[in-house]
């Protein structure tokens, strides 16, 4: 299990080794709307540019405001941490990430940059045509960049590898529905984060091994109140760890770096790019793209019930406008059902003492006297 965290912590080395091993190119991406299968089929490694949430004295000249998730990517680019990344692509989602995509190019020169339009109206019956056309343009430009032809066979293989990964991650998440889950929230988050910076075939192998070992794991006993994590994405498991150290357990998340990343599969069809278009448009709605047909609230409630949660932590990054705009409705639906929730705003780093105090109070509210409040 610790191997996922190791890869995550050493993701730059992982990617460099992958390059040395395969001679392939690494394509960094910013948003989960990037059709990774197409990249994979071009024999390049798609790597999500994850932030590290370190104090930053590099990006102030270039960026004002911006959530720490987007800003910190630029910080890392500026520090040269992504020097192995050959190209970057931005599939239209949040504007702060677009900013990161643009600013990154002032700090590092990439041999390939690509901008993919992804409709905000993901459910529009005409949206798939735009997504499909963007997918074709993306495929063509990747072929030119990598000098590899993306064949149907390569796409089939990529879809199969990615769908397998999604199924395996779902199996891990399913284990968390148990009364005494044998996988903690922090572990699960590290697994899914690692999947975004690894070759999925490697990740699949690791998942298969872990799934074999897990039944032998002993239950730690009653894990404490079951919490759900909702909100802006994050790229570490610090919050989950903090919650779990306080005697509660995060049983499910609705983050775009977490469950939303792998929740739905590609449903194969003759036209591979169309199948991929539908998969990416059909992802659980992110806060920005949850508009006409509101699906996010229902999805959150469904997860809450399926995973038998007892409370919700809504963690928002400061300057995260998609969530800042979507939250009122999420608060409302939780209040209507009397589901306890706590709203946390996160900044670049996690102020541990302060968060601990607040989380202790919340956990006590969900299950009185679970945490002995410090005087």
């Amino acid at each position, binding site marked *: 299990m610790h191997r996922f965290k190791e890869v995550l912590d050493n993701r730059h080395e992982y990617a460099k080794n992958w390059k040395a091993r395969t001679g392939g190119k690494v394509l960094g991406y910013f948003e989960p709307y990037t059709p990774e299968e197409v990249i994979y089929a071009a024999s390049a490694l798609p790597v999500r540019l994850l932030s590290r949430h370190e104090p930053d004295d590099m990006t102030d000249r270039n960026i004002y405001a911006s959530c720490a998730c987007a800003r910190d990517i630029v910080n890392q680019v500026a520090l040269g941490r992504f020097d192995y990344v050959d190209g970057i692509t931005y599939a239209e989602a949040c504007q702060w990430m677009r900013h990161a995509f643009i600013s990154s190019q002032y700090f590092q020169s990439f041999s390939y940059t690509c*901008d993919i339009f992804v409709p905000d109206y993901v459910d529009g019956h005409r949206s798939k*045509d735009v997504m499909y*056309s963007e997918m074709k*343009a993306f495929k063509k430009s990747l072929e030119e960049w990598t000098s590899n032809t993306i064949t149907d066979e390569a796409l089939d293989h990529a879809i199969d590898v990615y769908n397998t990964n999604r199924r395996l991650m779902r199996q891990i998440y399913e284990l968390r529905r148990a009364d005494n889950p044998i996988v903690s929230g922090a572990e699960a988050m590290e697994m899914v984060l690692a999947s975004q910076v690894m070759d999925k075939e490697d990740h699949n192998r690791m998942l298969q091994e872990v799934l074999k070992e897990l039944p032998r794991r002993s239950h730690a006993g009653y894990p404490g109140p079951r919490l759900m994590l909702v909100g802006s994405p994050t790229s570490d498991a610090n919050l989950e760890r903090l919650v779990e150290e306080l005697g509660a357990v995060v049983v499910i998340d609705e983050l775009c770096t977490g469950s939303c990343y792998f929740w739905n599969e590609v449903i194969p069809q003759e036209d591979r790019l169309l199948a991929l278009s539908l998969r990416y448009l059909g992802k659980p709605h992110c806060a920005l793209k949850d508009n006409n047909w509101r699906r996010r609230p229902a999805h959150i409630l469904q997860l809450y019930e399926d995973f038998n949660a007892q409370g919700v932590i809504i963690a928002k990054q400061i300057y995260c*406008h998609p969530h*800042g*705009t979507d939250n009122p409705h999420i608060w409302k639906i939780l209040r209507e059902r009397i589901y306890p929730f706590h709203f946390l705003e996160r900044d670049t780093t996690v102020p541990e003492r302060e968060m601990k105090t607040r989380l202790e109070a919340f956990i006590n509210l969900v299950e009185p006297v679970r945490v002995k409040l410090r005087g």
Partner: protein
Amino acid sequence: MGIQRWEIRPLEVWAKAKEMRAKWQQSIDDAEKEHVLLAQGNCNWAVGFPALRVIEDNPVGAMMGYRSSQFSRECRAAGEILGWGREICGYQLNCWGAMYLGYQMDGSKFPMRDMVVPFPDPCDQHTKRGQAPMDYSNIPRWQGDSPLYTGPHDPERDATMIENKVGTTLDIIADIERIYGQIFDDEKFIESINLAHRVREYAAEVCLSMQHIPAPLSQKDLYSFYTLGGLTKTDPEETVELWRMLRDEVKWRVDNNIAAVGTERYRWIEAHPPPWYFLRYYRYMEKYGAICIGSQYSHMMGGPFEFKEDGSWGPRVPLNSWGERPIKTREDALRAMFGDDARGHNFKVDEVIRPYAICEFAKAYKADGAIMPLWRGGVGCTVTRKEQGLRLSEIGVRVLHYEGSQPGDRTDQDETRLLDMLDVWMESQGLRKLED
């Protein structure tokens, strides 16, 4: 050496703009009484429906910020306690806060929207902005998209993206007809498209005239007309007439060297909307003989511009790419409205995707400096602002950044400090106040 002094005169057509704006406000306030539906959005086609009026929270929220900081603060508080982030666009918070409170600034009932058709994409906040009234009162919402791309011309991408816009709009119109039983008047819509092209042509001429020294208008003047015919939907013919009058008056001012600021000796540009509650800073800069000749944002009314091969500055896409072909159907009208090039129709391209494009803008308008607010609220207002500042500095345009909450939100604006900063900045460029 004495200071050059140009003749100044008030802009005559301004009174007409004010009157039209007031008429529009009245039409919104009377909508319920007159049994007219109110759509939240942009809906350039709304004129085809006999009983539909359009309102955007953009001008509404800005106007609230301008008129009463206290009321807009109350509105934002009403939103914040429901979960809205402080960093959300102040326009939205002003507007929807008033909806939560149930009343407007003058105490009258808040005009509830009957439907939402958000104007998508230029800023993420536009995409999400219609969410609040829909979530609050369970009204229908139609989302469109504004697909665009950058890079080399790609006919396939163009065709698909334009098709998406045309098709989605046709669907929305058909839905509204079906749901509300209103028959869409194609002829009226077609006529309005023909007129809209003329508005755009006049607006482009007005923008181009700002290259002249002395500038015939100031940014404040431009903003008096900015929304008319765009976000503020007024009678199409009256709107064209207004813009024609403005174009003529501006042309006359250029021909006769009539200035907006008689002592013009320093030209500056800005970015995105100004602090509506503190427009006094424009006047303050005039003490230095400094004039704001606009921003990419305010010049958006004339469309995106670029340097042509002969060195002239002109519209990037043909103002009427539909050309002389007759517009016969609703679909034709929509195609004429959207044009046939999905690149660069949207100011997002210049403001966000090409932060260096501001250098062309600065050169075209002979700018000496740029004042670039850094707004904490919203995203479109601030995204890439510092990159733009860096790019401008590289070409020798002096840049001043200052911080605040958002153009419609006075909360974090330190006005005294801003004036001090302006003094230091101007003096650092060797300029002193001409009068006090």
